[in-house]
């Protein structure tokens, strides 16, 4: 009996240790961003100082620099604008496509669906060179519109796939009842299917928005003027002047742009995973 309890305690401690170590690994950089945000530069850049404690009084100076002396706010606004535009385009194109793949097309639709999904795997690093030329020819160089145009290339495939899964899960009876009740196929889609898919649509909104926030390669390629940058490019390029790093402000900018969206994302994560694993789980 005593041996049994000891063993159970051992397992518990081991379990706790594993989870704790991993959590430390994943979350430490963000904790470190937060700590650094409030440190004075003189405190940061003194080699003997214990980095885990505030050797000098905490300060809001880094935040002031970030918000007042850089275009950080502007970058956040740019990111939000691009995000909203991309979300709208994605919804307009992906919702009908997802529904059609779920309901209106037979075998060829299934193949097409897989084809669309695979385009999600075509990486920006393969396309950014011709894309930069096309963007230039369209006169969109250095304009947020270039990002609005290009980002749906990866949001649409994944969101179409996600939504297809959602629509497949809706009982067919509901649409059929609506068709008998006096609506066309399309009418049933608009008035019955979309309203009961609010959760799915919301998932797609969050997902597209996070993808836009994370995107780096296209933004780095197309945008050169500081005023037009998104936050994921602005912080690492502009806040680094040659070898001079504004560590406090860098960390503050990174933390603020990372953690809130992560908390939001956390509520929807199961649905994204369902999208990733369609077909692989029975």
């Amino acid at each position: 009996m005593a041996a049994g309890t000891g063993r159970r305690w051992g397992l518990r401690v081991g379990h706790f240790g594993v989870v704790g170590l991993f959590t430390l690994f994943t979350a430490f950089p963000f904790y470190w961003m937060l700590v650094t945000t409030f440190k004075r530069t003189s405190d940061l850049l003194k080699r003997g100082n214990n980095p885990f404690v505030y050797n000098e009084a905490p300060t809001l100076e880094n935040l002031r620099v970030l918000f007042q002396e850089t275009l950080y706010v502007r970058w956040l606004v740019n990111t939000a604008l691009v995000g909203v535009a991309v979300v709208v385009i994605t919804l307009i194109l992906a919702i009908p496509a997802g529904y059609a793949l779920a309901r209106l097309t037979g075998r060829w639709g299934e193949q097409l669906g897989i084809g669309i999904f695979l385009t999600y795997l075509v990486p920006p690093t393969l396309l950014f060179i011709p894309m930069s030329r096309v963007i230039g020819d369209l006169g969109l160089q250095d304009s947020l519109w270039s990002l609005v145009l290009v980002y749906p290339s990866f949001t649409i495939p994944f969101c179409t796939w996600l939504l297809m899964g959602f629509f497949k899960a809706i009982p067919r009876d509901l649409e059929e009842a609506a068709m008998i009740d006096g609506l066309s196929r399309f009418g049933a889609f608009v008035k019955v299917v979309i309203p009961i898919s609010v959760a799915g649509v919301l998932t797609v909104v969050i997902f597209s928005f996070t993808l836009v926030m994370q995107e780096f390669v296209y933004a780095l390629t197309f945008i050169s003027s500081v005023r037009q940058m998104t936050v994921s490019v602005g912080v690492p390029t502009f806040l680094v002047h040659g070898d001079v790093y504004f560590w406090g402000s860098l960390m503050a900018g990174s933390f603020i742009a990372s953690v809130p969206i992560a908390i939001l994302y956390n509520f929807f994560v199961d649905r994204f995973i369902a999208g990733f694993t369609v077909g692989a789980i029975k």
Partner: protein
Amino acid sequence: MATLERDLRAPAAGRRFGFVLDRPEWLGPLMIAPAVLYIVAIVGLPFLLALYYSVSDISMGRRTLGFVGLKNFISVIPTSKFQTSLQNTFVFAIVSQVLVIILANILALALLKEFRGKWVVRLLLLLPWVAPISLGTIGWLWILDSIYSVINWTLEAFGLITADGWPMYLGKPYLAMGSVITVHVWRLLPLATVIILAGLTSIPKDIHDAAQVDGASFWRHHFQITVPLIRPILLVALLFGLVFAFTDMVVIFVLTRGGPYDTTQVLASLAFFTGIQGGDLAEGAAIAIFLFPLLLAVAFVFLRIARRSEVT
């Protein structure tokens, strides 16, 4: 009776167009077409352009575009820069994926158990995946800093290294590759973990109970019951991981810019530095094109294996 006949006939004549909205064979293509056209225009055409650029002499300043055959490939392939990058791409992708799959399995098993505060833990574990990767990597840049690294300070405090023996994580070839891989593992671990966790939770409890009743030990249980059952999903995680790892340049761009001495340069970053920053679009395109067969092979192999394991 007469009124009914009229009722039935009236809409047939009156709403001819409306019936397009009823016929799946019309409505289906009509609803997919916009998305497909957009993807073809934004992914398909640039892809073809990329193929064409790789056999042309296009560059940033010039408007003309001449066909030069395989000249770009011939001039790029023999360079040590390219060959190092190709090798680094494989090392980077394969080592990071092996680590990710092993660690994600351990973590997913640990998370299978219910415990208090699980949702907070999950949030913390997901952070690296959700946060913009360039910003997360900035955090690492500071942690791995050559002079003020918190890791080195801690190691010294524990007496593991001396004050003048601080490793330069991003400045020494092997350490730099190790750092880049570590950050990449950090970034992809959450996705792989939740995918595998989804697979683990989809196994019916009966099967675990049966294995226990049959007297299977922990390891036998894990490797003969659990792993085979989640194999399709392991493949999904691996597929995504490999694709992301083969094509990513963000971690490298932010941490090392390919340095020191190109020891962390990969194809994606080399294409960027050559094509965009160097202005030689043609050569950049030729380098980037090398990513494509890699991706194709990865996708093909895994779709095949995944399909086979679905059948059996």
